[in-house]
């Protein structure tokens, strides 16, 4: 009797094998930068709670080349994360129906991009204008 002798291939390095997986891992990697940013904001709140000197020191840090460099990376990560999130979100929400017809995924994606751009402008205006 011949035994069933199957071969199972290893998964090592799977994320390097296909551009789609590389993109996926980059998407997941954005979390590290966004976490750093959340930490940064938290640090700002802590500085604020400690008074003007502490807050000034925090602001000084923000202006340092190290911080600016880091924020460039964080910004790229944030934009990439947003891009992937909007593109894939129709898959993760119940189908939206208008007058019995399903709203096409494309419409949902595009409106999210538009929404994000709107938020960007409003926030810039708020920060700069007031």
């Amino acid at each position: 009797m011949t035994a069933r002798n199957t071969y199972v291939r290893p998964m090592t390095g799977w994320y390097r094998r296909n551009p789609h997986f590389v993109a996926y891992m980059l998407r997941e990697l954005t979390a590290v930068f966004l976490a750093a940013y959340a930490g940064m904001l938290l640090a700002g709140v802590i500085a604020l709670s400690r008074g003007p000197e502490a807050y000034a020191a925090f602001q000084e840090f923000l202006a340092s080349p190290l911080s600016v460099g880091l924020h460039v990376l964080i910004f790229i990560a944030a934009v990439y994360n947003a891009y992937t999130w909007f593109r894939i979100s129709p898959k993760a929400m119940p189908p939206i129906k208008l007058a019995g017809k399903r709203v096409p995924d494309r419409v949902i994606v595009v409106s999210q991009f538009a929404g994000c751009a709107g938020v960007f402008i409003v926030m810039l205006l708020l920060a700069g204008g007031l």
Partner: protein
Amino acid sequence: MQVVSTDVAIIGGGGAGLRAAIAIAESAPELKVSLVSKVVPMRSHTVAAEGGSAGVTTDVDTLDLHFHDTVAGGDWLCDQEVVDYFVEHCTEEMVQLEHWGCPWSRQESGHTSVRNFGGMSTARTWFAADKTGFHMLHTLFQTSMKYPSISRLDEYFACDLLVDDGRCQGLLAIEVATGDFVRVEARAVIMATGGAGRVFRQNTNAGILTGDGMGMAYRHGVALRDMEFVQYHPTTLPGSGILITEGCRGEGGYLTNKDGYRYLQDYALGPVVTEPTPKTMELGPRDRLSQAFWHEQQKGRTIDTPLGPAVHLELMHLGQKKLAERLPFIMELSKTFLGIDAASQAIPVCPSVHYTMGGIAADGTTATALPGLFACGECSSVGIHGANRLGSNSLAELAVFGKLAGENAAAFAREQAPTRSLERAASESEASALAILSRQDGTERLASIRDDMTQAMSDGIGIYRTADGMQATCDVLDGLVDRLAHVRLDDSNRAFNTEWLGAIELGFSLDVARAMAYSALNRRESRGAHVRLDEYDGRDDQQFLRHTLAVFEADAPPRIEYSNVNITRLPPAERVYGAAAKTTGDLANA
């Protein structure tokens, strides 16, 4: 050798086999069912059926009309009592499939729809877009999973029936993954192995359709009936033979020749109509349409494509929306295999072998002459298709007769004593299967024998036939039997040896091919799909309103015998389509 003991064994997990399994599980839940299939059931070729399945439903339709269409379509070679049973049970089966979840296409009201099909007097073909067989098969397969009494032997290749005491008591199978033999002992066996289109070169069939079941039954003395009737489907892709469903024409597609002319009007199928009209023009029966293609080719009015002559199937006038809704698979196929958008370009099509009207001789209850062996689906000949099957009758057939085979096999199994020892029969079959594998002195390549067989069949058993051509085919086939005995395989392993299984399949195919060729040679008339160009170019009811029976002879060509056709209420008449059909339709209504 492993042994599996069961009550009913079913060979074949296509629509027919699955329907039979469910029928047993529902009518006799205490019986164990073993479903043996060389591919996982949902891979069976029922999956590829596109157009639809017949069942009388609309107010203008009647069982009588369906009966009349089927019998006339089959050129009166149908057993009329069986056709009566068939048409009475089609609709119920379609409703049953709906209850099991089959996504039949619907009207706005929520009721199921029907479409027109070739040779049918009115719209009566139930459809699930153009993936009807796919949805039927997956519905049946998934539904079958809910019955604990059904156990599956997926990817087990049946290589012989086990017969003892004059009764079929099981089968021998090879577990594909390991090459191990398994003896399946059963009180009744149902054969549901599908068609045998692969014995021809250009065909619409899947690679698995090598006629195994027909060959197995045949070698055990069950006759193969009406094997000369092989249907050529008029609209398939040149080269590959991939099917472009008749549903295209049911929805209103046109066939045009190289001058853009709707040539069917020249072949007694007119008048030219712009809307799909039953039994007229593109909705004539398949044999007539394939013959018309042949004549166009003779007249030099076909289109040359790199893969052979073709005519055009035009769907452009149906509009993108309708095509996307009704014929999405055809759109996909033309994009993939031709690189064209069928909404804006015509599809080149030509006839290919499609369906085996004949098969394992069985009566209207699906019982064969070998006690304990039942047959249903395309491998069987229960007597409803005659000399030419109407499109959409075979999906209905596998549901109606699959169920009947299940119920009858279950009833039979209940009355049988436990199986006797089949060890000896099994080890003999095992030895002959293993002999192919261990042969070292062979010289013949498997593929070249196969290619020679398919070429000979396509040459001699075509749309039009002559005595010389058929004789030549018979001669080639006789020679191939010897050559197969000298085949040499590259693969001597047991595990997943598809070359070995291919050699066993080719043995069955050759037997089936010979049954077809000799049956054809001996039918000295023209009827339905068997049309001769020599002196036998007309129908001869006097001599040949009879079924052909090909009986297996070891080491010799088949013995050809004849049996009577059961004619109860519709005497033979001329088959008429186009303008002439109207009156006949009215007659059947009366």
